């Protein structure tokens, strides 16, 4: 049976389109509408048109502040740890060692993040690492329920997401370019700075974007390792929707987060694209 190509394309895209509309666009519209409403007497949502929810966002300033500081810091920490690891995997490790280490990077995914975060509660808690540090004289060190604990959890949880894109871009890097650089007189460090690093930027950009976006919406790690003291916007949303049942205000907070992400991600993409000289990706011959 003959079918016009454009209908065939439409048919192929239908499942994804329905999914995208039902699970993303529609809920977003609902949240957008709700954000201008009011809280019902017993919680939930009552239709209204008011900007009060948005004007009141300052009440949740701490959550925004925590998210907007720990998400970039967490992304940066992931990057600083992931880059040397990815570099070693792609350029230094023998093929056998590389496979083994890559598996080790993936293995944690076999266990739920929830369970792994529990493990960190014990590690960072009073009888964990602080107890060990007390043995060498560093007493009364508090780790759990601090921004540091949240940061540790973030780096632990998100490191693979940073390692893989960087690894892929370094792996795809034409190794002859490194030889060419050396041949032209550049010592190893300069070769790294002028060839390896610029050419791995697509991987760095992808990794940072992935980690940053996910961190902006993170709620599990701060909830478990921040112990209610270090909370993200995600935690505020859980609280607003499930505890105080102020759906209208919660919607406004959610809209604000979406808006902040849109602005930062767009600015980030613009910057990286300009940096790459108008190309989406650095082509390798």
């Amino acid at each position, binding site marked *: 049976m003959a079918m016009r190509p454009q209908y065939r394309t439409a048919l192929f895209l239908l499942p994804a389109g329905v999914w995208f509309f039902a699970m993303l666009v529609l809920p977003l519209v609902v949240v957008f509408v709700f954000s201008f409403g009011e809280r019902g007497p017993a919680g939930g949502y009552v239709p209204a048109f008011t900007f009060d929810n948005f004007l009141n966002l300052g009440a949740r300033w701490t959550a925004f502040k925590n998210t907007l500081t720990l998400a970039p810091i967490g992304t940066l920490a992931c990057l600083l740890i992931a880059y040397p690891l990815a570099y070693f995997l792609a350029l230094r490790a023998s093929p056998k060692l590389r496979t083994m280490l890559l598996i080790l990077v993936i293995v944690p995914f076999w266990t739920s993040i929830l369970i792994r975060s529990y493990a960190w509660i014990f590690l960072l808690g009073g009888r964990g690492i602080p107890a060990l540090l007390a043995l060498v004289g560093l007493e009364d060190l508090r780790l759990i329920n601090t921004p540091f604990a949240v940061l540790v959890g973030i780096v632990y949880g998100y490191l693979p997401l940073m390692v893989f894109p960087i690894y892929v871009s370094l792996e795809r890097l034409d190794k*002859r370019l490194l030889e060419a650089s050396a041949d032209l007189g550049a010592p190893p460090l300069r070769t790294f700075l002028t060839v390896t690093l610029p050419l791995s930027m697509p991987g760095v950009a992808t990794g940072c974007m992935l980690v940053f976006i996910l961190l902006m919406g993170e709620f599990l790690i701060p909830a478990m390792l921040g112990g209610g003291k270090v909370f993200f916007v995600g935690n505020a949303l859980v609280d607003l929707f499930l505890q105080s049942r102020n759906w209208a205000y919660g919607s406004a907070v959610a809209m604000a987060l979406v808006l902040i992400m849109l602005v930062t991600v767009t600015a980030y993409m613009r910057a990286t694209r300009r940096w790459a000289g108008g190309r989406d990706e650095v082509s390798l011959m």
Partner: protein
Amino acid sequence: MKSEPSLHQAPIAELRNASKHFGDVIAADALNLTIKRGEFLSFLGPSGCGKTTALRMLAGFEAPTKGDVLLDGNAVNDLPAHRRPVNMVFQHYALFPHLTVAENIGYGLRQRRPRMPTSEIATAVERALDTVRLPGYGPRRIWEMSGGQQQRVALARAIVNEPKLLLLDEPLAALDKKLRRDMQIELQTLQRSLGITFVLVTHDQEEALSMSDRICILRGGRIVQVGSPRDLYDRPKNRYVADFVGKSNFFAGTVQQASKDGCSLTVDGGHVISGQSTQDLSRGQKCSASLRPEQIRLTRKPDGGVSYPVQIVTRIFLGEHTEYLVRHADLGDFLVLVPRQAEATEGGFEPGDAAIATWANGSALILADD
């Protein structure tokens, strides 16, 4: 690098018993070679013969396992690539995709310490672009350039540094045939005008023959023969060289008689082929008689020399020449190259025709198989 006057007499580069082992694999086996100042030398051989390893030892990418690599009379075994006054044109050019054409060419100059002034670098880059006939292409991006242009950029990026040795690793392999011919001529002209010593690696015998002053033929990590293109063609050391350089017909047989003045070989069917040898042969040794296709004539009637009745199998028209594959009852199939002029007087042959293949008595080369 300091160079004392006396050292100017030293060869520009030298391999002394240089070997390279990769685990159990011997990529280069005790190579001994002197590279003369200002010459165009080619390493020729099939893949895996060690030619690339030899080049990489000169570049500094591989340190010899045994033996020495000398530049200007000094052993440089442990001198890393970035400190050697040697530049390379890579097989697939290895141009930096994130830099412009001018930035690529200026890369080597920017590595100099003390720093070279930016204006001087710009001038040198412009001059290099002129040399490779790409004036004004500096601001272009690498991916905007065609294969042939990228090749020129790679060349400019190397010669702008005025290296003592310019290494070329199969630089023309990725170009189409017409462009390759043009670049061969251009490379040769460039080498003459710059006076830089060129060392080329290639598996293409035609390329090596047409460009080089000297060719070094490698096989299985060893040097088989070093000589001018003409030497190698006319006086190949063994069957391998004769087979690799140009086309040749080989007739296997046993040495019947060998002396300084010539030797003769008994081949299949009891025929005797006589000729010269470049080796010391002894009676009874298994050898091959080598005859170039252009040494053989095709006629309709016997015409002096040694002649064999043959039948034409195929004919390939090559323009100036026609190449015939002919069959003799005892000697088997062999190639004959007939110039256009000879065809005009003798008339062309068709497949299936009977003909007489003739060559001058004693004109064959008797070569041992190794």
